[in-house]
Each structure stands twice: as structure tokens, then as C-alpha cells.
């Protein structure tokens, strides 16, 4: 091992340890390095999980974030994307409050939607202009920024409430499962409530296949669903892209 490599191994170990053995770690300046790395990770988690921060309050969030940053430090210098596994930490820490982990998953959806690749969504006008057989042959898929989920808790209502009013501390919700869809235009993330039928349709588009097959499979499982209405809402939200290979 080179002298540089052994120094860095020693330094990294000292940063991770509460009682480092290295002589340099006893200088007061070492605390600056320790604090800077940790603060950057904590700031990134606070920026990525603002709704969890609101729900838990600064003190509990900080405790959770420090625990997470120690166990799962950044593996990339791109901190905007740090903390993909923070929902697992939330789930562990708040087993008695399952909506916290669900809200953290939605915060993570927001980040992934915000940072995802650009792509032109399929527009309703394009679909309206298609002949029936062209429509059934169409292969539509999810836009890179589309994220959706079905939650055992009313986390979507809680999340939307906090996003819409940062001062809100008490939200009245019906304690029942809910779904949510997040999409992004060129400039902003938007969110849409989703019923179990819309979540099933999104899942079908995610699996892929021609539109005709997706529609008949979907209707066989959800005979009472308003397929045309759900499809129109997905187009309106910009959730889909055209993946047809000509």
C-alpha cells in the first residue's frame, strides 16, 4: 500500500470512529473535517426528505439522519441523489408510525421525479388523431420521471397536505390505503391522487406491451373501471411516453 493510501485509510477510519487512534485526530482542527462531512450528508437528507423533517421535527429527524449517515454514508459525490435507502431507516425507527416510512417513500419519489431524464410525453391530441388499429398497436411506457405507489397508510394525503401548506401540523385524514402519482413537466414536479385502478394501469404500462393487450388485460381484472377516463388522466399528467418501434 502506498503512503498516500495508508494515510487515507487511517484518516477515513478516524472520521468514522468516535475515539480515533491517529495522532492527527487529536488536533482541534480534526473536528472541522468530521463536522463538514457529516453536515453535508445531513443537509442532503433534510433537502431530500422535507416532509419527513416536518412530521418528525428537527430533533428526531436529526437523530435519524445522523444514524443513517453513519451506517450508509454517501457513495457518490452527487449529493442531490443521496439517501435512496433513507426510507428503510425511517421504517426501522418508526415501526409504530408506518405512515412515516410511506411519506419518506413519497419524498424519495419527488427527488427521483425531479432529477429524472427529460423526454417528450405522449399528448392527448396525438392519441386522438390515431386510427383504432394504430392505437391498439401503440407501445406506451412510463415517462422517466413518472413515479407511483399504493400505500397501506394515507401517506399521500398527509404528504400533499404538508406540501401544500408548510405550516400545517395537524391534518385530518381517513385512515385507509391510498395511491399517488408524481410526474414532471420541463420545469416542475406535480402530483395526482391515484385509485387502485390507476395504480394497476400504471403497473401495466410499466410492464410494457401493445396498447390493445394492456387494455384487454386491464379490463379483464377491472371490468368496472373507466379505462378511457384513467388513460386521459395519465396523458394529461404527462406520465407516458411513446415506445413504439417502427
Amino acid at each position, binding site marked *: 500500500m502506498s503512503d498516500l493510501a495508508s494515510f487515507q485509510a487511517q484518516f477515513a477510519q478516524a472520521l468514522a470512529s468516535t475515539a480515533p487512534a491517529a495522532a492527527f485526530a487529536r488536533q482541534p482542527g480534526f473536528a472541522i*473535517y468530521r463536522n463538514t462531512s457529516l453536515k453535508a450528508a445531513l443537509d442532503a437528507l433534510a433537502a431530500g426528505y422535507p416532509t419527513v423533517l416536518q412530521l418528525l421535527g428537527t430533533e428526531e429527524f436529526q437523530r435519524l439522519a445522523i444514524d443513517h449517515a453513519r451506517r450508509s454514508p*454517501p457513495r457518490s459525490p452527487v449529493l442531490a441523489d443521496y439517501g435512496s435507502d433513507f426510507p428503510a431507516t425511517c421504517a426501522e425507527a418508526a415501526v409504530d408510525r408506518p405512515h412515516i416510512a410511506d411519506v419518506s417513500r413519497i419524498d424519495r419519489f419527488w427527488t427521483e421525479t425531479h432529477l429524472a431524464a427529460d423526454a417528450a410525453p405522449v399528448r392527448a391530441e396525438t392519441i386522438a388523431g390515431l386510427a383504432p388499429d394504430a392505437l391498439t398497436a401503440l407501445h406506451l411506457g412510463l415517462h422517466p420521471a413518472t413515479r407511483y405507489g399504493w400505500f397501506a397508510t394515507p401517506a399521500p394525503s398527509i404528504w400533499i397536505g404538508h406540501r401544500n401548506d408548510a405550516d400545517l401540523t395537524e391534518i385530518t385524514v381517513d385512515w385507509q390505503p391510498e395511491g399517488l402519482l408524481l410526474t414532471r413537466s420541463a420545469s416542475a414536479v406535480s402530483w395526482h391522487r391515484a385509485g387502485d385502478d390507476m395504480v394497476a394501469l400504471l403497473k401495466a404500462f410499466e410492464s410494457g406491451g401493445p396498447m390493445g393487450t394492456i387494455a384487454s388485460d386491464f379490463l379483464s381484472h377491472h371490468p368496472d373501471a373507466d379505462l378511457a377516463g384513467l388513460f386521459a388522466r395519465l396523458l394529461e399528467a404527462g406520465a407516458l411516453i411513446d415506445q413504439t418501434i417502427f
Partner: protein
Amino acid sequence: METTVGIGFKAEHFEDAITVPAAGLWFEVHAENYMVAGGPRVAMLSALRAAWPISLHGVGLSIAGAADPDPGHLRRLRALVDCFQPFLVSEHLAWSRHGETCFPDLLPFPRSNGALDRIVKTIDITQNALGRQILIENPSLYLALDGHDWSEPAFLSEIADRSGCALLVDVNNVHVSANNLGYDARAYLDALPAHAIEEIHLAGHTPDPILGEALLIDSHDAAIADPVWALYRHLINRIGPRPTLIERDDNLPAFSTLMAERNRAAAMLASVQEPACV
């Protein structure tokens, strides 16, 4: 490009940044903030670039790491360079990665002969991957380490000679490090090779909450201090005008406050001549 003064870009200042009427203004952005697939962040940088020249400042390549630079990171950096055509690309004389772990910081190391060889190789790899010269910035230092074979100015001078990279002199970092480690900031600046210096950084610092002035922190959260302005004057009097950046990352003031610091630096730049022979 004319030698002028730029400002470190913050998203909070986006509206001001693209509308401010200021001849010669440019912005520096942290490369890692834009290493994302797409969306509003990238759109913002495109709009900024359409309005002004930009300089790309990396904080995560781990130039002084013991291992080869991460090929994925180099590819992402190259993509940004190709897309946004920065007039300068810079990184730090520091490391921030060990194995799989990244430290969001600029960490120190003993400036040994072995470290010199390794860093020159890393800069070579980086410049080849980017197809252009990079600038290397002196870090802020907080620890007295054993094992230095080189002073920092001699080390920077040697890596510039051997790799063909240029230097970015952060005058605030020189002030902070000289204060913390007890050396003379002017002597440090005078020992740097003038011809290799292609950019200067100016920023604010804060005293350590416990140790006070004995330990200064390169916090980028305050106005540029008077001793740093004096060192800047001293440096440009010797080497001539260089593109200069006002950096503020925390405790953000109004954009106009940064423009006032920018105009102060611009007036100092305008008052010095390019030396006939450096």
C-alpha cells in the same frame, strides 16, 4: 475572454443572475450539482449558460485520492464540459473518496513524493478524459500533518510543470491555512509560479466557535475579510489580472451584496497592469 470577475452561482439567485446588466459577468457552478439525468436543474444551468460564460468547479473527483479517478465521474464531467462549454474547469488539491465511501469534503494529505507522482498521474488521466486543461485549487488546511516532502506552493508548482495543469489560487484558503498552520501568507503567494495561475477565488471565513481566531474555518458564509482583500491586491500586483470569483455558499445575502463585492474586485483588477515579463 476578457479578464473579469464572476460570482459563484446559487439557484436562489437565478432570476437576478440572468437579468442583471453587468458587462463581463460570469458564473461558476459546482459540477456535481448538475450531474443529474435531466429536469429543472439542468434547464436552469442551460438558461444561465445562454446568458453568461460559466466556469465548472468540481468538488468530488478526489484528485488527491490514492486510487485512479472514478471513470463514471469522469464521464459525467466530460458530458457537462461538452454540453455547457465552460471557459475554465477546476478541481481541488484534496481527496474525498476512500473505497466505496465519499466524504462531501476536501480532505488533506501529506505532500510526499509518492503523493506527487500519484496526483500528476490522476491529473493526466483527467485532462485526457476531458480533452482539456484543468485548474487545481489550493485547499484550506486545519491540521499539521507529518510526512510532507514539499511545501504546498512547491508541490502545486511541480504538478503544474509535470501535468500541464494550471492553478486556481483561493486567496481566502491561503489566509485560512496560513493562520491555522502558522506560516506567512504573502511568502506563500510569492512562491507560486505566476505563469501557471489562471484563476483566483475570494471568499469569507469564520473563526472556530470554541478556539476563535486561532482556528479559522473556510465557511463561505460571510463577506470577504479585509486581510483577504489585501492579499488579493498583493497577488494581482505581482502576477497581473486573472479571472476572479466571488464565492458565497451559505448564509446567502441579496444578489446585490455579492455584486458589490464583485465590483470591488473588478475595480482592483482594472487598476493593475499585466506585467511585461512574469
